[in-house]
């Protein structure tokens, strides 16, 4: 869900498409979906006259946040599919 000045502008509820092995992975996948939406919102704003810095995404799992912020290799997370590491790229360079 994305909010602007307290009003919801974009939202989605989705069934998990794969079986996840850990809660961290689930939250991590959810944030990947969110960052895809974020990219679009960012583009929409930046192609108009509006100014929007990096969009902040709040996630309620500490481990997923650490995973997104720290691109280090973990033996426990090597099973996570490459596509879900998209959120890492987004965290590194806030959307172009």
């Amino acid at each position: 869900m994305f909010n602007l000045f307290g009003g919801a502008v974009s939202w989605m509820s989705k069934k998990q498409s794969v079986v996840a092995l850990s809660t961290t992975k689930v939250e991590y996948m959810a944030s990947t979906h969110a960052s895809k939406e974020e990219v679009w919102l960012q583009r929409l704003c930046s192609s108009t006259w509006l100014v929007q810095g990096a969009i902040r995404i709040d996630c309620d799992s500490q481990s997923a946040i650490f995973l997104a912020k720290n691109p280090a290799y973990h033996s426990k997370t090597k099973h996570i599919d490459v596509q879900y590491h998209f959120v890492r790229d987004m965290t590194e360079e806030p959307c172009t």
Partner: protein
Amino acid sequence: MYVKTTIFHEDLEEEIYMKQLEGFVVKGKKELVCKLKKSLYGLKQSPRMWYQKFDTFTTGLGFTRCKADHCVYFKLIGVHVICLVLYVDDMLLVRNDKEIIQDLKTQLSSKFDMQDLGAENYILGMEIKRDWEKRKLWLNQRKYVETILQRFNMQDSKSVKVPILIDVKLSVEQCPKTQEEEEDMSRVPYASAVGSLMYAMVCTRLDIAHVVGVLSRFMSELGKEHWITVKRVFRYLRGTSDYGLCYQGRLGFYRVLDIRGFVDAD
């Protein structure tokens, strides 16, 4: 603004032929076909032709098309901004200066056959309410919700507080076991009910997003429990038909946005 006769009567780029109409066949030339000069309603090319024509016209007026969403156009004139949002033949104009928009309206009307509906109160079935002083704007679908309640004969149902109970577990296991049950379920307008709910969900009712997502997994294998859950959502909507979204502006730096996202999985 609403464009009256948009889709028809645009010039065609492609060569398209049509069978001669029944009753209008030219005598002795039965084997001939008609070549279309203008586009017709229902033709695959017509919406595209309309969009192209509109696009050239608006870019000619100095509008820039938004890269992320091709139906949004905007134009900057000094500190003033006009934003044009197009939805097939419905158009929303957003501005921060009244006079500029009058010019634009005249220009648009001279090119297209348009109807000016004034300050928009309805767009795509959503009602728009404003409070200029508090800089607030509400979007709700009260009318749409009432219509679908009536369509599924739920307008006099007792309302409930939550759209889905936490202990309701829906699964394919609950699909009908006997012939009789199956027949019962085949008479239920499940798909159209879920579809109606989905439209509300996509527009303004994010509170039913989860339950609609759950319900739409059982389109083909539905049992009694699924239908009961659908009815529960309708009963929820009955009590909350005037719920909607509220947007507000911020004083000062109106150009600087502050979008924030929230994610959760469970």
